[in-house]
């Protein structure tokens, strides 16, 4: 029996209708294409009235298939599937074709765009006739959640979920949670002490009954899918037995080996070979840095072991693999600082008193290496003038084209601290001042009042080549002041480079492990830039904080909480729908060659040694189709993507190649569908 296809072409206001003659496309499909029972165009198909059109036609005209030509299925496939369902038609008998992003938005020529829209509609009509009813599956959602990264975004997400009563695993690669925020002295624009507002959250996480904290640990592997992920985590060897350590700190105190701390102290201070990154570390369990420990270097010392009152030191400890099962994952892996050495004309690493912003954060932190005294590298001289250089590696086509977002405010904060703690003059070299969040502009005005000097212009170089006696012994900041329209030289004692916020070096790799993608720059891609900024294209994986793009603390906290809310929703619902678009193996045709077993990226195919056939584990299958195309016997079938459906789609797209223009009726019969 022939199918009765309903075709619905959307105007999307003028989004589609502006470039595609939608009325013509609908009329053409209704009159010329075989098996089309109804064909309509409508201003907004996604509106409730548009949906009602589809529902009514299914009921009244007995449609057996539906084609909606509108926007991307990412946006509205669910909408129209639901409409079909409401009217009693299996939702998988609806096909959506994208004549907006794939057509009207990318073409200029109205006639050509209309022609292409016809092709797309025709392709979907031919395809939909071969689509089969499918039933979605529902799986239980594991109530536990994995949060990756213990910076402020990850901490917030963890606390939201744990406080709601759900178990959370928090994995952090450093020995302590806290992230970059723990390194800062003050936070803008309120100038609260960063540690004072962060450490309560840290200890709450550390002591929370619902939180399993895994610090000094790395994500190794993620398998499974939404609701039921299996995760392997490498617990790196601390060489301190976690449960035996009381955190008394004697080992750290007595360790004879001091090394430069390039991590927490950003190279401004030292740490011991056995160390906790900072006094308020959570957990209060030190780690041994095997790179610098005397025992690991030349089998001598063991002072920490001898002095530990609870015998918690274990030099033979090895990395351990931990397997956990969770329903959802929140990525909150944070950011890295731009390597300011990449801009050699700013002199970092060459000129002693050029600092990175992180170095300076440590320098003015009361718990930092100088107890918060702002002094030059000689350790005693207070600077009389300080230059703060914005956009170092940001808004620079040679490095990062984007704006790092937080540096203008951070510069104002650092400028304030210099003015508060010293008698120095402070110059800020900016391209544009960007202070566009709540109370930020007011903070800028405050600094103008406090006497911070602002020079609009990109710094050309920082040099020690003096041209006149007043420049001798100074760092000279050369800059075109674009407000004055003149090259200017500013001799100063200290220069702070506001380096760009960059993705973590291994962001891409970490994303791959979880099956989420990155932008060109390496930021995780959210599902929708405006309407779904915490979900990703992979169900069950969410993002929070600066790993998705440069963010300040309030925004990171907000996104951490938002991600947690999304996860809590999934857990509360308890079940998640799994698309029935999966592969299945015809056991009669399977030779047991096992080629598909290793190819499957989701480990969704198991081999039954007794029956000598492979089987698809439906709950794990993502319907990617790799096995379908690889099976030498053609024994694997991908639901919703059968050969027949795809060949029909191609044939439909090429309607004008096998039809005289303008008609696709009788002759269509003559061309056989070549697929089985």
């Amino acid at each position, binding site marked *: 029996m022939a199918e009765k296809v309903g075709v619905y072409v959307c105007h999307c206001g003028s989004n589609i209708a502006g470039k595609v003659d939608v009325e013509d496309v609908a009329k053409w499909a209704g009159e010329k294409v075989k098996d089309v029972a109804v064909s309509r165009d409508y201003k907004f198909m996604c509106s409730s009235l548009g949906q009602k059109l589809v529902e009514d036609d299914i009921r009244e005209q007995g449609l057996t298939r539906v084609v909606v030509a509108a926007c991307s299925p990412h946006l509205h496939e669910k909408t129209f599937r639901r409409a079909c369902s409401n009217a009693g038609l299996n939702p998988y008998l609806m096909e959506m074709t994208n004549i907006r992003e794939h057509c009207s938005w990318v073409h200029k020529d109205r006639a050509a765009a209309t022609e292409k829209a016809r092709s797309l509609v025709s392709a979907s009509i031919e395809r939909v006739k071969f689509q089969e009813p499918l039933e979605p599956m529902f799986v239980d959602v594991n109530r536990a959640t994995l949060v990756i990264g213990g910076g402020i975004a990850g901490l917030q997400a963890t606390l939201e979920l744990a406080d709601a009563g759900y178990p959370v695993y928090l994995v952090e690669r450093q020995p302590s949670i806290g992230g970059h925020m723990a390194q800062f002295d003050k936070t803008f624009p309120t100038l609260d002490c960063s540690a004072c507002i962060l450490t309560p959250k840290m200890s709450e996480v550390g002591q929370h009954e619902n939180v399993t904290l895994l610090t000094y640990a790395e994500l190794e592997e993620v398998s499974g899918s939404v609701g039921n992920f299996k995760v392997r985590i490498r617990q790196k060897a601390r060489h301190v037995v976690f449960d035996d350590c009381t955190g008394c700190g004697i080992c750290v105190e007595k360790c004879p080996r001091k090394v430069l701390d390039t991590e927490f102290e950003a190279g401004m201070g030292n740490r011991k070979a056995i160390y906790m990154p900072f006094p308020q570390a959570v957990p209060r369990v030190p780690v041994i840095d095997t790179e610098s420990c005397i025992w690991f270097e030349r089998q001598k010392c063991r002072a920490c072991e001898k002095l530990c009152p609870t015998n918690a030191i274990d030099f033979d400890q090895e990395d351990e693999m931990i397997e956990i099962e969770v329903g959802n994952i929140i990525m909150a892996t944070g950011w890295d600082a731009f390597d300011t050495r990449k*801009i*050699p*004309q700013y*002199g970092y690493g*060459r000129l002693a008193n050029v600092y990175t912003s992180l170095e300076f954060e440590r320098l003015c932190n009361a718990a930092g290496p100088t107890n918060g005294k702002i002094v030059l590298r000689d350790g005693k001289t207070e600077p009389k003038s300080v230059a703060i250089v914005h956009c170092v590696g940001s808004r620079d086509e040679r490095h990062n084209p984007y704006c790092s977002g937080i540096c203008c405010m951070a510069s104002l904060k650092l400028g304030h601290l210099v003015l508060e703690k010293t008698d120095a003059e402070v110059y800020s070299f900016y391209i544009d001042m960007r202070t566009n969040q709540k109370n930020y502009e007011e903070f800028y005005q405050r600094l103008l009042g406090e006497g911070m000097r602002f020079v609009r212009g990109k710094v050309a*170089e920082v*040099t*020690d*080549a003096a*041209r006149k006696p007043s420049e001798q012994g100074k760092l000279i900041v050369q800059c075109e002041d674009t407000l004055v329209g003149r090259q200017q030289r500013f001799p100063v004692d200290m220069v702070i480079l506001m380096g760009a916020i960059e993705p973590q070096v291994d962001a891409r790799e970490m994303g791959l492990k979880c099956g989420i993608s990155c932008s060109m720059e390496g930021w995780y891609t959210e599902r929708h830039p405006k309407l779904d900024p915490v979900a990703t294209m992979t169900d069950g994986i969410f993002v929070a904080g600066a790993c998705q793009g440069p963010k300040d603390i309030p925004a990171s906290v907000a996104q951490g909480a938002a991600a947690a809310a999304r996860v809590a929703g999934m857990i509360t619902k308890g079940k998640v729908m799994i698309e029935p678009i999966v592969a299945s193996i015809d056991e009669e045709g399977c030779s047991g060659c096992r080629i598909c077993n290793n190819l499957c990226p989701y480990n969704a195919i198991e081999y039954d040694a007794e029956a000598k056939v492979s089987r698809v584990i439906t709950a794990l299958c993502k319907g990617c189709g790799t096995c379908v195309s690889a099976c030498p016997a053609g024994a694997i079938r991908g639901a919703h993507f059968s050969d027949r459906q795809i060949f029909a789609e191609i044939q439909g797209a090429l309607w004008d190649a096998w039809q005289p223009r303008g008609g696709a009726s009788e002759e269509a019969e003559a061309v056989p569908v070549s697929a089985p």
Partner: protein
Amino acid sequence: MKYAYYPGCSLEAGSAAYDKSVRAVLEQLGVELDELDDWNCCGATEYFSQNELVATSVIARNLALVDGEHDQLVAPCAACFLNLKKTDKLLSEQPVMKGKVDEALAAGGLSYRPGRVRVRHLLDMLYTDIGQEAIRAKVVQPLNGLRVAPYYGCQIVRPLNGFDNPEYPMKMDEMFEWLGAEVVDYPVKAHCCGGHMTQISEPEAFELIRRLLQSADEYQADVILCMCPMCQLNLDAYQGRVNGHFGTSFKLPIVFFTQLLGVALGIEMKKLGFGKELVSAEPVIRSKLDGSSVGAAT
């Protein structure tokens, strides 16, 4: 290794020491240079501002003269290098200009397809193609104890060059570290020497020259190394007048980097064109290095 060679006008006259040392050094390193037959001036820094079509055609002629045996053209002069490279790029990006230039070339029985010849600066070729290992293997007289200030000038570091950091070049620094010299990392190494400003406004030009000399002097350099004839001329020939103008007493020898590279390779100083510079380089080189072994290979 074989390259087409474009010496440029300066190397035939004021900068003969550059040409002499380039040839001697490359012979020692086993690199064959085939000088372009009947090459012409590159137009230096001015011609492009005077008449773009003529400037482009004149330079394109040199590119067209590179025969089929060579696909790389080496130029030691920074201005020549920049002009040749710029012309190749311009011809590939501007079809109208290319049409006119094609016509001009055809009148002389020549033709050129943009991109056929890869224009290389001598420093790039030495650093990249010959490389650290081969150069170090040939060092006879390490430059230990000699403080050198590599000076890149402003032309070679334009973004077009494609082989070194345009803001803060380091390739010559690295090369002289291979040779054992104490390389002075002074901040003005890519600043302008004034070019032909000496002919237009001496006070302006002298100030630019003074900045370079002063910075190298503050970093206690024994010698400044140049890779551009114009730079060498300005720093060397005007040094006395700069001293007179500012009451300074700089006495810094200014040589081409290939001259000192030749010393490290053991080539006799006479064969490297030493003695042509106004502030004599030989005494400081001999006194800092072990004088007896300088030029041991020849």
